[in-house]
């Protein structure tokens, strides 16, 4: 009887904690690891995978989707259903971007993203401008490892 009660209490606390955690991570901010080196040297400047950067992603920008050129954002992939990428916005709606062959205009409601490490980055030069609705948050600072804690400009 005591064990059952204890289990119920623990489940209730875990459930409440989980719900509060999900709400905070959806509306306020969350911490995500950075995989790959497409944003070197801003993020993940070394190639060792056990020293991945962890960044703080803020979600207040999703209220009105107002971004500026230079924001580093997390967005869902336009081609692969479950993937998320971290890249920098280099083109806002209505601007002209010169890619390798021609000059492209970024359509309304879309943006052009590119990684800082142009050599190994899968970005808008491959899959074109992405709708702003795919963006899931803006990266504001690095929070781990401690020697790399800094704000991202």
């Amino acid at each position: 009887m005591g064990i059952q009660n204890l289990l119920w209490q623990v489940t209730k606390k875990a459930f409440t904690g989980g719900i509060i955690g999900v709400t905070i991570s959806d509306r306020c901010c969350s911490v995500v690891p950075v995989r790959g080196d497409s944003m070197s040297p801003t993020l993940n400047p070394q190639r060792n995978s056990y020293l991945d950067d962890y960044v703080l992603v803020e979600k207040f920008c999703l209220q009105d989707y107002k971004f500026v050129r230079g924001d580093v954002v997390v967005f869902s992939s336009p081609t692969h259903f479950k993937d998320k990428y971290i890249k920098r916005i280099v083109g806002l709606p209505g601007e002209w971007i010169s890619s390798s062959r021609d000059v492209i205009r970024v359509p309304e409601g879309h943006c052009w993203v590119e990684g800082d490490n142009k050599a190994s980055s899968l970005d808008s030069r491959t899959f074109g401008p992405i709708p702003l609705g795919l963006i899931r948050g803006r990266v504001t600072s690095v929070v781990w490892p401690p020697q790399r804690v800094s704000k991202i400009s």
Partner: protein
Amino acid sequence: MRWLRYLNQWRGTAKEALEQVSIVAKFLCLIHVTDRYIISSTHVQGPSMLPTLNLTGDVILAEHLSHRFGKIGLGDIVLVRSPTDPTRMVTKRVLGLEGHRLSFSADPLVGDSSISVVVPKGHVWIQGDNLYASTDSRNFGPVPYNLIEGKALLRVWPPRFFGSLR
């Protein structure tokens, strides 16, 4: 010494107030999780889904589980974040999944010039039921699957049209 007594009284009330606030906060968090991840109600209006959805506005229940597991199929009515304005949601029907070939007429009012497209990987083709008054994939092209935010389940208002949508 009197202010010590006032402090004690204030502490009791503050504890009670904090408990009430935390109950309200937990309830709001529960509403957020249900609304975003399980089921929610949306008010849809506009002529683009006639005759399925009314012009003057319906309230429909939409579930947010299917699209997370990739279970959106042909003919589903989905809530999609608009690719031209990320602050707006649009309701359309899925008429093509990735890899499908579709042909549509560029302008349904004049002639029948037909355009054929193949839906690229990771995208879906959405179209309103009312071909004459709908801006959909015929205008802005196929949309990425990840823009889908929910699938419509049934209509709850107005009451005489209560039931599933077909």
